[in-house]
């Protein structure tokens, strides 16, 4: 069994300040972890992924995430928020056994204040 918990349903930051979106997971196997972003009325776009290589993963648009096995966390960060970062962010866990079965978190809505 696997699950993923996004600890904040809404996060509000000022433009130019750091972003932290929190994600905790549980998995019976060595998981793959992903962050996806969904802009209003758009599909989902992959930001970054962890698949057992480097624990610090860099993604698109300046985002990065660190896999911490001891804390079962995969928090998403960005040093400086931009207005265009306002969107819904989903943390996703995959158990990588055979055919991929993924579980989505409930999403975190990021608001960026000018």
């Amino acid at each position, binding site marked *: 069994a696997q699950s993923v918990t996004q600890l904040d349903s809404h996060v509000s930051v000022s433009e130019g300040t750091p972003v932290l979106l929190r994600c905790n997971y549980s998995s019976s196997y060595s998981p793959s972890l*992903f962050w996806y972003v*969904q802009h209003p009325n758009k599909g*989902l776009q*992959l930001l970054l992924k962890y698949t057992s290589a480097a624990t610090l993963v860099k993604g698109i648009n300046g985002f990065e995430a660190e896999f911490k096995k001891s804390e079962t966390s995969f928090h998403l960060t960005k040093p400086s928020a931009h207005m265009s970062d306002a969107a819904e962010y989903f943390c996703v866990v995959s158990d*990588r056994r055979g*055919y*991929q*079965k*993924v579980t989505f978190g*409930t999403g975190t809505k990021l608001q960026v204040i000018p």
Partner: protein
Amino acid sequence: DTAVSQTPKYLVTQMGNDKSIKCEQNLGHDTMYWYKQDSKKFLKIMFSYNNKELIINETVPNRFSPKSPDKAHLNLHINSLELGDSAVYFCASSQPALEQETQYFGPGTRLLVL
């Protein structure tokens, strides 16, 4: 060059009608998925097909019937539509043979049942 495309983008229909949503991917992937995103943005997997064979069926009512004529297409037919079927439906594809598989999402089909 759209990687995963869905038609229609919007679908408004009456209760009790039967409707279909089409999905096509040009990525050469073997596996395709259907997800349902509810009004609270929660994403839940419905079906997964690998090389035209059903591999995941997540307790979806049998009014929903996926059909995969070839591995590049996965269509979703819904019989006797109900109000609760109103949601955004996302198609996705991936290549499970690769350890670092990533799911690529279509733009979504916004279904409104009146």
